């Protein structure tokens, strides 16, 4: 990554971090309903993937997907408004935290059912091949999703039909609140892709440059017709599975040991060494967050008389 790209990556990561920390506050203040799943600590994967994708590429993601959509550059105003259930939200308040969708930027949707979006990505890849269009579809999912049938069926289909899809597994070591090592017989999720003869690589998900490089190379290969690729991002979530998680399944020391490598601090240090004004970037991100929050709070609620609008497309 050159300096400009790294600045962009840091800005995206910082935006994701501050967006999600703000969600926590707004949740505590009852501005947000339901459940929220934060990706704090995993921002390098989101930023690396988002920046490596071309504008025409498609994405499906998961309920821990705020960051992935932010990295696709959906304005955070619309995401914040969605979190607050407003008509100006990216999904008009019909979706919420787990369903960010932005077709204009190729985001086919975040999905609240573990692994359900993976076959959707394979279907989008089928479209690209059938229609001879130039887009690659990226699907992001967690380590826990590799225990779902949908994951295995999707990998098999992608391999059999040689479809242009990139599988990105964010292995944060925990399947919700259970250590992944206790519930899989493999050491690396990438081994599962090998069973389907899909080229697979393990990537340091705490190094945004490494993520970016691996994704960029994989997408280039896929676009040139080489078939699907699988990337396992070794990462870690520094907060609980969801709001209110007591985290009794892991030690404080373990979390601290990962915090030392927090991709935001390491990237900030790198940029500072290049003479970049980190405080300036942070201040600018803060203004964006404040703008998003006031936009969301000032936005109108959806009108209950339009309850049925959108059950069917165009109706």
């Amino acid at each position, binding site marked *: 990554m050159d300096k400009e790209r790294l600045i962009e990556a840091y800005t995206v990561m910082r935006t994701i971090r501050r967006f999600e920390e703000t969600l926590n506050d707004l949740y505590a203040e009852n501005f947000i309903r339901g459940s929220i799943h934060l990706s704090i600590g995993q921002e390098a994967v989101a930023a690396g993937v988002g920046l490596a994708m071309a504008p025409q590429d498609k994405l499906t993601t998961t309920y821990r997907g705020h960051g992935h959509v932010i990295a696709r550059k959906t304005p955070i105003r619309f995401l914040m408004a969605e979190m607050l259930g407003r008509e100006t939200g990216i999904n008009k308040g019909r979706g919420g935290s787990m*369903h960010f969708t*932005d077709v204009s930027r190729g985001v086919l949707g975040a999905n609240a059912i573990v692994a359900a979006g993976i076959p959707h990505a394979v*279907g*989008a890849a089928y479209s690209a091949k*059938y229609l001879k*269009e130039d887009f690659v579809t990226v699907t992001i999912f967690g380590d826990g999703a590799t225990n779902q049938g949908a994951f295995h069926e999707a990998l098999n289909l992608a391999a059999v039909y040689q479809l242009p899809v990139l599988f990105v597994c964010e292995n944060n070591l925990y399947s919700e609140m259970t250590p992944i090592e206790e519930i899989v017989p493999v050491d690396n999720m990438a081994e599962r892709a090998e069973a389907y003869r899909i080229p697979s690589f393990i990537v340091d998900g705490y190094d945004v440059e490494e993520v970016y490089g691996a994704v960029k190379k994989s997408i280039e290969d896929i676009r040139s017709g080489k078939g699907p690729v699988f990337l396992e991002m070794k990462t870690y979530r520094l907060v609980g599975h969801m709001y209110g998680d007591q985290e009794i399944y892991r030690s404080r020391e373990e979390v601290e040991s990962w915090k030392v490598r927090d991709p935001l601090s390491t990237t900030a240090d790198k940029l500072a060494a290049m003479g970049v004004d980190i405080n300036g970037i942070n201040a600018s991100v803060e203004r964006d967050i404040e703008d998003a929050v006031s936009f969301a709070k000032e936005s109108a609620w959806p009108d209950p008389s339009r309850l049925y*609008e959108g059950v*069917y497309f165009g109706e």
Partner: protein
Amino acid sequence: MAQKMTYTQALNLSIKEEMERDDRIVLFGEDIGKPGGAFQVTKGLWEQFGSDRVLDTPISETGFFGMAIGAALTGLRPVVEILYMDFCAVAMDQLINQANKLTYMSGGQFPVPVVFRGQQGAGRGNGAQHSQSFESLFCNMPGIQVVLPSSPNDAYGLFKTAVRNNKPVIFLEHKLLYGIRDEVEVGREPIPFGQANIVRSGEDVTIVAVSRMVQFAKEAAEKLAQQGISCEIIDPRTLVPFDLETVAKSVQKTGRLIVVEESHRWGSIGASIIHEVVEQAFNYLDSPPKLIGTENVPIPYSKPLEDAAIPSPEKIEQAVLSMV
């Protein structure tokens, strides 16, 4: 141009014509390629349209249902064959959480133009896991349309509407209708959804029946006519959307309502139809409406048990006689 053909041939022709008209239509399913499908509905299509477009899939319902949805979000109009409708159960998430919800959850950002089609129903001794009728279940999934053609002509005309519109469709065929032969208006306009078909006009009782139950109702009505009882048979053809107006109007005329369905009677769409009619036309009813559905047991294999479980022309006849 009217031509006599089977329900299977009518469907096959409709799919073929639509694929010739629109190359965004692709087919996914098990054994639908060279074998032409277990029930021959896709016969000849693999040869005509090629293996990229008529995709013979692994036995991975979750995988290829989901794949169809993803393809639908990105410009295609997939038609998925479900070998036995019972197999939906292994992929229910893709129907109940995905196909029907993505448009709404996204704030209306995209259509999900997928047709999930296949056969269901009892009467052939296929046992409990190959015989159930699922229309009631599918009616409880907002965002998906539920279509049940009962004749070759309806199969032909309803499929065209299913594949041309932007909303997901569950298209329920019946394994014991595939062989029936009747006239099909080849080249006809698509049959709109939400428009019931008055299969037989009558004065004394309204019988609402779908899918194979239309055949049973017709048999019962013939016998009852010999006894001087006149039945009006209404086939809604689509349960979502539902043409309540035609049914309510008929009940206003006859004063009596029987709903015949092959899905299990407890928690059924038949019960909902009766409920709506009672709300709208209670004062016109001369007797309590009746519901004839499948008994609340898994469909048994043995013939006398299977016969006892599902509706029959005799059960319909008895119900009418008890009302008039």
